[in-house]
């Protein structure tokens, strides 16, 4: 039988996760290798090599990389030159002039220096107006002179071009790019409208600057990756995850590197959306708990929330991404006493020194140390026993740093660390759902990431969430999610016209042009016509309002049908609809190329009829407030149909599921764990 192995590789801060999914048997294997910052492709080869010697038979290969993100965060991108309109060279630096809310009361706040210093920014004559009409011709000699200054005099190898109102008419940007590419064929040239056709000049300038900043880095990396994987026998195209879900070919990723920068958490959301659809969970919250953060996304009817603007380190970028909200607390967060109150975070022990129990010099107790004290984690089985753990040191730190000052027992102090962490997480989930006028208790929770299965059932109890779903290999669920991606690309253009039948007719050529671009991209990526799908969408708002909503267009739609759908969505989202006229802000076309994907495969109900515990250990039960014996099960021994009653612990090396006295756990037909019950059930 021909095997159909699909690979997905996800690079995190500390580890590279590679998974291999065998579609015919349903077998799912994970291998972790350390991240290799100096030569990032090597970590990928190491992780893949742990699963297969050769890749000749591999059916699909998807990769999520944080390389572009890290280049920005660590300021290790290219030196960039910016060409903009004469009189506007400081748009990047003036930005929106605002201070981040976290620094609201810091009256000597200094923002990080701009990515491009002022001496590397220059303006040229030429101007479009808000309707895209040319007011002043582009001065081509000035463009050549700008090139000479930035490339020959300043020695820059990557240029970014952004002109005012180019979203309405990109002709000047395109002409300037042509001139510069002709003059300097080896220099990378990025234009804002190649990446986004949305208005707001600072955001577009920031977007194209980030693109120019990471393009050379990504180009080298993808080249190294393609070479190494081809050497190992890979014949299928390498696909790279996009920040807004979906994947793209490596070739396109080189042309649009910015689309990869926030792809890390996207895999998990794609996977969660896939499960939501497959398992008919109309309301699902993805709950990804890592070492330093909790990432949540609301998924309704299988569709994750989306936004069209992201930010990295305060720099905005106009690309579509999932609406993922982050709480700055996770396994590595430090617990400390502030004038008698117990605080968890915002500081994290990180990978180095890490929790006290790692014995790497950490002295401040973390959430992980509390989990050891409470018996949730087995020191001997940590990361499959590959990591030595000093539970005694964890206990001593919790005692000295927390229990003594609080005047409580060590167990109470450790349990309190979880209570405070939960209180923060509960608040965050309520806040992201109240924005959409939803109640989190109507949702199911999909818990993944290394610490998700530990925190998920506890959080569900606290909030009255009825069901927590724990997928297979939860620690590598982000990589699994990548296997569920289609090829996707989004094209958008800002139009700003009143919503009317006349406008809908007038924008038809613009929509057709976007669709044409979509068709071209899909066709160059080898997608057959029958597997291509083009979805039209309008961003609509009330005239004079700032915020807009995306409305999918169906054939035969009129201004009236669009407005009525917009009114209904506005009512649901903002609590009211208005009698005002609508305005179209942006046209969007999403081009989807369907890729063959593995389905969820039912696993045989093998082995004994009942789950057999591998042992038991004392742990803290939040349902009873006492330390009691917990039955300990190995995840590998559980099979579909098995049911456990809490208190119980399920271990699988890279993560641990903990349920309490008032909860029960069922293994579903696909081998996933369903936790139900809890105080509000």
């Amino acid at each position, binding site marked *: 039988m021909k095997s159909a192995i699909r690979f997905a590789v996800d690079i995190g801060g500390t580890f590279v996760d590679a998974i291999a999914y065998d579609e015919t048997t349903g077998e799912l294997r994970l291998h972790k290798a350390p991240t290799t910052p100096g030569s990032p492709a090597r970590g990928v080869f190491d992780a893949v090599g742990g699963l297969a010697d050769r890749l000749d038979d591999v059916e699909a290969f998807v990769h999520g990389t944080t390389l572009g993100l890290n280049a920005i965060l660590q300021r290790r991108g290219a030196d960039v030159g910016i060409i903009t309109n004469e009189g506007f060279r400081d748009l990047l630096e003036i930005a*929106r002039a605002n201070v981040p809310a976290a620094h609201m009361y810091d009256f000597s706040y200094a923002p990080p220096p701009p990515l491009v210093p002022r001496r590397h920014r220059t303006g040229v004559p030429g101007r479009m107006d808000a309707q895209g009409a040319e007011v002043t011709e582009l001065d081509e000699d000035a463009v050549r002179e700008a090139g000479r200054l930035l490339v020959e005099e300043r020695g820059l190898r990557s240029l970014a071009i952004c002109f005012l109102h180019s979203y309405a008419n990109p002709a000047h940007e395109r002409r300037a790019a042509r001139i510069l590419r002709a003059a300097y064929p080896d220099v990378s040239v990025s234009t804002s409208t190649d990446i986004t056709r949305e208005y707001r000049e600072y955001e577009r300038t920031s977007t194209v600057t980030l693109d120019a900043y990471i393009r050379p880095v990504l180009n080298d990396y993808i080249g190294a990756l393609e070479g190494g994987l081809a050497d190992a026998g890979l014949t299928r195209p390498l696909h790279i995850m996009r920040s807004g879900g979906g994947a793209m070919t490596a070739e396109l990723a080189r042309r649009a590197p910015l689309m990869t920068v926030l792809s890390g958490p996207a895999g998990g959301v794609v996977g969660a959306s896939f499960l939501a659809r497959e398992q008919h969970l109309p309301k699902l919250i993805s709950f990804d708990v890592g070492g330093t953060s909790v990432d949540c996304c609301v998924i309704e009817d299988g569709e994750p929330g989306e936004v069209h603007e992201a930010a990295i380190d305060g720099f905005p970028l106009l690309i579509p991404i999932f609406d993922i909200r982050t709480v700055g607390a996770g396994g590595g967060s430090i617990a400390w006493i502030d004038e008698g109150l117990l605080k968890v975070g915002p500081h994290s022990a990180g990978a180095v020194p890490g929790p006290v129990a790692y014995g790497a010099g950490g002295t401040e107790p973390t959430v992980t140390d509390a989990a050891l004290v409470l018996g949730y984690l087995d020191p001997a089985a940590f990361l499959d026993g590959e990591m030595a753990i000093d539970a005694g040191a964890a206990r001593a730190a919790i005692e000295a740093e927390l229990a003594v000052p609080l005047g409580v027992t060590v167990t109470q102090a450790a349990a309190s660390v979880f209570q405070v962490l939960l209180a923060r997480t509960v608040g965050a989930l309520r806040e992201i759902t109240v924005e959409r006028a939803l109640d989190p208790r109507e949702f199911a929770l999909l818990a993944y990431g290394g610490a998700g299965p530990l925190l998920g059932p506890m959080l569900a109890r606290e909030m009255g969430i009825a069901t927590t779903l724990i997928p297979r290999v939860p620690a590598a669920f982000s990589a699994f999610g990548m296997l569920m991606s289609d090829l996707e690309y989004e094209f958008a253009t800002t139009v700003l016209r009143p919503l009317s039948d006349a406008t809908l007719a007038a924008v038809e050529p613009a929509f057709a042009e976007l669709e044409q671009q979509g068709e071209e991209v899909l066709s160059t990526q080898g997608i057959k016509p029958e597997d291509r799908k083009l979805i039209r969408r309008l961003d609509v708002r009330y005239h004079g309002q700032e915020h807009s909503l995306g409305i999918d267009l169906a054939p035969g739609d009129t201004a009236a049908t669009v407005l009525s759908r917009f009114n209904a969505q506005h009512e649901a989202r903002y609590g009211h609809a208005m009698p005002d006229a609508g305005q179209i802000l942006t046209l969007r076309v999403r081009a989807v190329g369907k890729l063959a994907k593995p389905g969820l495969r039912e696993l045989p109900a093998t082995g004994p009829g009942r789950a057999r515990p591998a042992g038991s250990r004392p742990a803290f039960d939040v349902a009873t407030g006492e330390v009691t014996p917990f039955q300990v099960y190995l995840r590998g021994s559980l099979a579909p149909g098995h049911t456990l009653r809490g208190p119980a612990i399920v271990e699988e090396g890279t993560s641990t599921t903990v349920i309490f006295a008032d909860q029960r756990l069922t293994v579903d037909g696909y081998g996933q764990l369903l936790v139900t019950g809890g105080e509000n059930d």
Partner: protein
Amino acid sequence: MTEPLDGATVEVIRNYLVSVGEQMRRTLVRAAFNPVIYEVLDFGISIYNADLELTAEAAGITSFLGANDHAIVKGVEYVGRENLRQGDVYLLNYPYWSGAHSYDAMLFAPVFRPGHEGPAAYLAVRAHWMDLGAKAPGYVLDSTDMHQEGLIFPGTKIVSRGEVVRDIVELIRFNSRLPDLTIGDFHAQLASLRTGENRLAQVWEKFGGPTVDQAVRQIIEHGERVARKAVAALPDGTWTAFDYCDDDGITDDLIRMEVKVTIAGERMEVDFNGSDGAVAGPVNLPIGATESLAKAIYKELTTATEPSNAGHYRALDIKADPGNFFHAVYPVATFTQWSGIVAFELMHKALAQVLDSIPASSGGDEPGFMALGHDPRTGADYVISNNEGIGWGASRDHDGANAQQHPSQSVVRNTPIEVLEHKATLFHERLELIPDSGGAGRHRGGLGVLRQVRYLADGEVLSMKKKSKTRPWALHGGQESEPSEMVLWPETERAKRVGMYRAAMRAGDRFVNRTAGGGGYGDPLERDPAAVVADVLDGYVSAEIAEQIYGVIVDETGGWRPTPARAENHEG
């Protein structure tokens, strides 16, 4: 009295209560109709305990910190605690009580719970309404008493036992030029209050009402301990400073504002009584507004990263006698409180005499503009505003930020050129940093910006600034910067320099909005020459100023040599 709770339980409950405020904030922003609420963040949300002590808050911008604290006390006093019923909501915008101008409408609601005598908590949501019938549309720059500033509610029942009082809403409808937006925002505030009531009830149910009350007491005690400790670490003494606000909009006279700050052990006193008395125009500050700006600076010094509660301010005394510029009494005009923005940094100026961590002046105030007119392209009227960045003051450890919103509203964003040119008949000819605009110093003040705009059709411009006649202050031998200004019709015979001003513009007319740089810190001759060279290469500082003020002669290759003044200074 309930037993004291452990520090973990208190922290858990504190997180729940802070989240209630945050959920109220998101509900308001979600449901608000006017961009002044969801873009300019002109709102304040507070939760109080049964004793009207602040439990948690979600402020829109920096200078609205504790904005409702004075108003809730006045409002409950006026209505009478015994008259409050479950489901009632009251409307208060009487400026001398609310601590804000008449268009900032505060709704407050008592929240009851079984087993608790009288209200167990209060919620307050204040937000900027678009129009309540003042003498002119938009902003009022020249009122001379309260009765020219719109309809006033002293604490009027607008929802009775859950039912909206139709008569009051109709009164608003018939008195507002923009009734739909105004009543829409009223409903957004109600939605925010309802979210707060529901979530507060959930918190009480989860932990038990008396336990939550006890936790709140401990949260406030904790806040007090942290703040007192921070004040105790500051040197004791008394320091006085003064500064000027341009004028009151009626006469051209400067307004002198003075503050005396005293630190004695764990307490701080801020006394504004040395300032001028009330003025005729609408720039007088109600005491509640004065308290907010004093609290913001105090917060910076004590608890900058913590959500506020009443305990934080227990060791702060604020003094301004009735009739003073900082304590407006009926019927003085209070509509245009830009004066409060100018006064925002006044405590800094006093404390800078003893604390070297205080930065120099951040340009003075918020030097934005509004544009009004009729757009012949769309046939619609437009009103649009822009908050303009300003140079921040240099500080002990670094240069001031370039073109950043004034600290009093630093989280608000400017309006993109592409949005301004779409919504209004404006055409930008220039928006750039102004070289040499940052006050010179060992650390340089941030740079201001220059925006040159041409009107494509007839319209109006409102220049918004109240610190254009006197210069932003510098520290420790640094240099002052040029103040903000707007120049109307530049480079014509009509050219006119203005501060706060309303002007009619014809198609083809131009204005230049020029914002101040930040004040400098320390002697410019002591500035690191490498920093001066970098400034010259980046065009932040001209070669002439580098030589004349900083004593650094920069050559074309980026090399440098000292002037005799710098060499002498170095040897001395």
